[in-house]
């Protein structure tokens, strides 16, 4: 019996084309959303611990290195959200007529809703823009 040569996946497979890269960044964005969750939980914890703990944490979050890291994390999070919105119309075709809605239309509606809800949340928190 001839010997088969087993398949081995290359470590850098996700650099092979930009769609794989986009996917990996989307998955990384998922990890980032968990990190944001932890930051938020810690914020609540410091809030409970008292004003000085809360202020110290907020001041630390405002230091330039943390802000830069946050910018990168935020970009990944936005990418995660946008790419998931892109998948909605593809994963569950929405059908009112004979043909399902094009995924771009579903994507557009979701992005508009997202912007609307985010605006409402900002308004609720800051009482105006």
């Amino acid at each position, binding site marked *: 019996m*001839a*010997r*088969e*040569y*087993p*398949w081995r*996946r290359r470590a850098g*497979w*996700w650099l*092979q*084309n930009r*769609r*794989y890269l986009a*996917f990996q960044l989307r*998955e990384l964005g998922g990890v980032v959303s968990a990190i944001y969750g932890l930051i938020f939980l810690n914020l609540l914890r410091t809030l409970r611990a008292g004003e000085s703990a809360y202020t110290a944490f907020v001041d630390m979050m405002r230091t330039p290195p943390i802000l830069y890291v946050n910018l990168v994390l935020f970009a990944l999070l936005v990418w995660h959200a946008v790419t998931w919105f892109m*998948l909605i119309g*593809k*994963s*569950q*075709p929405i059908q009112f007529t004979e043909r399902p809605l094009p995924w771009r239309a579903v994507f557009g509606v979701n992005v508009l809703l997202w912007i609307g809800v985010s605006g409402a949340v900002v308004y609720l928190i800051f009482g105006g823009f």
Partner: protein
Amino acid sequence: MAGRDVVFRVKRYRPESGGKPAYQEYRIPYRDDMVVLDGLNYIKDYIDPTLTYRWSCRMGICGSCGANVNGTPRLTCGTYIRDVHKGTVTVDPLANFPILKDLVVDFDDFLTKLASVTPYIVREESGDLSKEFVQYPEDVEAYRQQSLCINCMLCYAACPVFGASPEFVGPAASALALRYIRDTRDEGADQRLARLNTKSGIWECTFVGECSVVCPKDVDPAAAIQTLKFLATMRHMRRLLMPGAPSR
């Protein structure tokens, strides 16, 4: 022949030698109407008769001529050299499968997976099988897209999830499961969804979507898997909330 040449870098693996697969280069003349399969046939006919690869129909029907061309899974009979070469055309065996020889890979694993989704119409044996089962054009339309699959395996070669977890049932077998589930003559949805709702089933899919990009027949297996996730969830909920009710 206008005197144009192209270099084919072809991955070779000789199982009897026991060595690792390695590239071999061939310089061949080409015309604009030649596909990658023509290039391989030229090599086999005029340069190196030991080169081994699969093909049959030369018209995108049999699904046997798949290979990674410049890193992307493609049907070599449907890929023009002029569209893919920048001086060189690199041809590898389909990724994610063990190599038997040169460009020929072992598909046995896929055939087992395909069989596991019962890829044929299932009827209750107690039912009346003598009557005609009428289908209207819209009934056919419901599964037409998935029925176009030619089992070429390009989707498996493009799927990084299958590359990392070979137990994953994979895109084509899932798409074909949906093809039969959507067929109004079929009564096997429950057993297929039970198979797919397992650890090696559809939940492995993280929706990379590359299977649908490379599919030469526009089967869109990625969308089929997401639809199956929805159907499997509905089946699970029905069994949970209405234990005695029929599963479909």
